[in-house]
């Protein structure tokens, strides 16, 4: 898997590396703040943290242009941030405020931003996949060159919608890049306890679809693999399945006591935490100093603090508007 050749452009390489690191840190600090605000009862409902999986969200998102469409899951804070959504509209959404990206109608699991072609967080596992196929169908029928990135987890692979969607996309040669974030658990059920075939990337073969798997803790490897997969999809020969092998460090949700896996397993994965892994690599290459990290942390910290202030200060949607987004009147 070839990483972009940037050895001759050390400045660009350094800038891009710092950008990737900043994006991962935005997600990490955002999620930590979300957990804190949840325990302070500022955020309610379900909250599924992305901590540990930052490299998959950030690395893969680099392969998409603003014209492409993105479909994500209920664990989509990382995807939304990596797609460029401001932290403040996400925090406000979780606060249930009118300034939230979905006006407080969606909460943590349902972030949307049509201006960024971020078609949302889907909380029925696998439920976003047919929608992604349709977005790609619309692009193809209208001769747009865009592709659709469809994130889902290993749990979705057991759903019929996974198989129906892969089949339909392959049959009609649609420009979909299926991105399976395999964090080894479908909620609390381990991969080997829910899949007869645990090598998820091999499932694409049943649909004549090319696929590969990549270390989801290595942001550069994810970026390179996704770029290569996206290049394939952009050629118009059909979809691609890329499996991103990762791990979530936190429980499934804030209400999960995490009884189904051992502390040793979690600790062993934390040794491969994608953020220090990347920081150390950059330091070894002489691309990153401690003061760079401090600078990024400080910038990210300001964005997160601003997001909380914004969410706190924002108004709630008036109850009079309760029904206004249920339907629109006839167009013509």
């Amino acid at each position, binding site marked *: 898997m070839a990483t972009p050749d940037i050895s001759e452009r050390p400045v660009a390489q350094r800038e891009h590396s710092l950008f990737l690191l900043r994006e991962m840190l935005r997600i990490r600090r955002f999620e930590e703040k979300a957990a804190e605000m949840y325990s302070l009862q500022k955020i309610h409902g379900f909250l599924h943290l992305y901590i540990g999986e930052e490299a998959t969200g950030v690395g893969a998102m680099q392969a998409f242009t603003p014209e492409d469409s993105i479909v994500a899951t209920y664990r989509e804070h990382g995807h939304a941030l990596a797609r460029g959504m401001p932290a403040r509209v996400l925090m406000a959404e979780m606060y249930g405020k009118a300034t939230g990206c979905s006006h407080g109608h969606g909460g943590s699991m349902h972030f949307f931003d049509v201006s960024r072609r971020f078609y949302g967080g889907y909380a029925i596992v696998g439920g976003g996949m*047919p929608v992604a196929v*349709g977005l790609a169908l619309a692009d193809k029928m209208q001769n747009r060159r865009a592709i659709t990135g469809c994130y889902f987890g290993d749990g979705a692979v057991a759903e019929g919608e996974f198989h*129906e969607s892969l089949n*339909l996309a392959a049959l009609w040669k649609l420009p979909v890049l299926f991105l399976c974030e395999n964090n080894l658990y479908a909620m609390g059920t381990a991969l080997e306890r829910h899949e007869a075939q645990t090598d998820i990337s091999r499932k694409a073969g049943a649909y004549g679809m090319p696929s590969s798997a990549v270390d989801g803790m290595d942001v550069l490897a994810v970026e390179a693999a996704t770029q290569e997969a996206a290049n394939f999809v952009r050629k118009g020969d059909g979809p691609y399945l890329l499996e991103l092998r990762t791990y979530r460090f936190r429980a499934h949700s804030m209400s999960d006591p995490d009884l189904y896996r051992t502390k040793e397993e979690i600790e062993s994965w934390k040794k491969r935490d994608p953020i220090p892994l990347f920081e150390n690599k950059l330091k070894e290459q002489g691309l990153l100093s401690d003061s760079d990290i401090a600078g990024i942390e400080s910038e990210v910290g300001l964005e997160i603090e601003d997001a909380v202030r914004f969410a706190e200060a924002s108004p709630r949607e008036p109850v009079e508007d309760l029904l206004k987004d249920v339907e629109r009147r*006839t167009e013509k």
Partner: protein
Amino acid sequence: MTKMTYREALRAAMRKALKDDPRVFLMGEDVGRYGGAFAVSHGLLAEFGPERVRDAPLSESAFVGAGIGAALGGMRPIVEIMTINFSMLAMDQILNNAATLRHMSGGQLSVPLVCRVATGGGRQMAAQHSHSLEGWYAHIPGIKVLTPATVADAYGMVLAALREADPVFIFEHATLYPLEGDVDDAAQSFDVTHAAMVRTGSDVSLITYGGTLGKTMQAAARLADEGVQADVIDLRCLRPLDIHTVVNSVAKTHRAVVIDEAWRTGSFSAEISAQIMENAFDELDAPIARVCSAEVPMPYAKHLEEATLPQADQIVAAAQELVPRHG
């Protein structure tokens, strides 16, 4: 005005839409080369090609979901679901996505999807092809539910549905496909939101929709022979519901029979009954009567299926119960 069948009217409307709007396409099981399980789309593949008349694999969830995604992406998909029982396989996409995305996204998303679904019994297709579940759909905020009972509505409702910004479900009672009638194919707009007063009388209101309109009209003719004059209301659109036409009729007749091919318990007839009570309780001179299907999975044998479905005899009997005997 052009004379045609219900099936031809649906086809003519889709043909017009496919010609007029490059965003429109048809997708579903066997809609192309086979010509449609009920031959509704016969000939459209030859005229518009496989890009716009798409044979889908037997993946109701995927192709309904793909219709949702295509609608989000700027297309105007018409998705055909072969029977309403099969639509259960797509219920996740219909309820959790199609009906929900606009609101859940804070009004950012619009899903202009049209789903055409065959419904209803009477053809000895037994318990997995024959039920009337439109009422379940009418329960869901965010979608519109149309039930064309006439040839004119088969044509007009397809074209009207394609102008909506939100998902529209059109339930076509499968016994109606050979029905003949007149279509105003020069009309520019079609009202689909009002119930139709199909026959007027002063003694009782017979309220129905879709496949039972014909039986209700037969019953009304027989009642007239006995001196009982009935209003017959075709609801046409179950969501949003035009309850005003119903209430106005009940205010005149003071008696109502609701005819619904669904099972009685929790059916749309129960909703009609409740709304009459909420809006016109003081107008009623008798309890509201309902004629519905027997509470049994649809049997195959003809005599059993007939015993299951609402029939004109039962409608006549229910109306006679309510109306005081003359003379």
